[in-house]
């Protein structure tokens, strides 16, 4: 009976080891009462060095921020920040996620030039970004094109970063501009590329 029990335990252990796929060695031999048996099981996890970065929606599309000021004529050019629409969260707000185990992550923003509407332009300095978490600062959008200075995402501990924030975009409204639709979906310099980099 005991041998049967021991055999059953040994078989179950072997089955479990096979299912786990991590069996390096297993033995169970003890013919003398009280019986005991032991097996060893080694575990291995291969965890990559990685960097994950999200601005806007997590799905397939590229999010758009739309500062439609058609209803703001009374305030145009008066220096008061004006709210935008769009972003994956609405109201001109985009989700930002930075996850990595590769050390200090820094962010930059690259623009192709000022926002364009025909012959007219609006510098990207009119697009203001406010973060709701100082751990994830937003790089300034280069006014007339180029790559911004880098900002550091605060690491959580050691080389690990796991930060989420919301970036809110507004129209800075510092001057009066000619009427028109400036920028857009990958037209008229409307597309900004954010870059996250490890050391």
């Amino acid at each position, binding site marked *: 009976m005991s041998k049967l029990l021991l055999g059953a335990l040994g078989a179950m252990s072997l089955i479990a080891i096979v299912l786990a796929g991590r069996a390096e060695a297993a033995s169970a031999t003890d013919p003398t009462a009280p019986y005991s048996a032991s097996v060893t099981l080694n575990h291995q996890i291969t965890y*990559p*060095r*990685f*960097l*994950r*970065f*999200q*601005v*806007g*929606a*997590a*799905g*397939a*599309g*590229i*999010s*758009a*921020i*739309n*500062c*439609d*000021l*058609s209803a703001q*004529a*009374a305030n*145009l*050019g*008066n220096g008061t920040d004006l709210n935008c629409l769009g972003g994956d969260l609405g109201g001109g707000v*985009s989700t930002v*996620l930075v996850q*990595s185990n*590769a050390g200090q992550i820094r962010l930059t923003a690259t623009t192709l030039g000022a*926002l364009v*509407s025909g012959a007219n332009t*609006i510098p*990207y300095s009119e697009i203001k970004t406010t973060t709701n978490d100082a751990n994830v600062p937003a790089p300034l959008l280069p006014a007339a094109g180029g790559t911004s200075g880098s900002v550091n995402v605060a690491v959580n501990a050691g080389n690990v970063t796991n930060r989420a924030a919301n970036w809110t*975009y507004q*129209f800075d409204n510092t*001057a*009066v*501009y*000619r*009427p*028109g*639709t*400036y*920028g*857009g*979906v*990958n037209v008229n310099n*409307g*597309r*900004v*590329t*954010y*870059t*996250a*980099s*490890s*050391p």
Partner: protein
Amino acid sequence: MKSNFKRIILAVAVGSVLAAPGAAMAELTVVTGAVGTLSTTARQDFQVIIPRFLQFRVGATAGTISLVNCDMTANAAALGNAVNQACIGGDAGGGVSNVSVVSNAGQITLTATTLGQLQSGANNMPFSEITTNTSSANVPAPVLPALGGVSPTVNVVMNAAPVTNRQALWTYGFANTTVYAPGTYGGVAVQNGRATYTASSP
């Protein structure tokens, strides 16, 4: 043979997972690498819509109509001597009103419209007795029509066509060119006391 087939299927699956973030999920991307700099991007589009517009202000904001009051009660010694007398009131006080013209619609013109002479019962006083001096030549003040009607237009100087963003102070005075019958002439939307300024684009 069967084992090799399984390995091929697994490799294809893993390869698909690794390739997907960079290809389709443009704003959520993942990269891996044992050594060296990891760098990845997320993109976002921006659009700004600026309407064609015209803002115009004379006096107070927020829908309030300012009153310029030329109370000559304390100036009896000077009445009728053609020396301009200061007024009070206006949103800036001392008979001074703030003026702002903001537009992106081209050359802005201003006119002033009065309903007639200022009245006090049966007595009249032409609006020509009200003088307007501007603090900025970029924002000239239209002459108030003495007997009612619409003034000639004056141009606000554009900053850079078609954009105008000009502010000025208009100071009102009493021209005091002659002696009038006693009374309170004009007022708040009474006795022809209200002048209407109009700003227009092309």
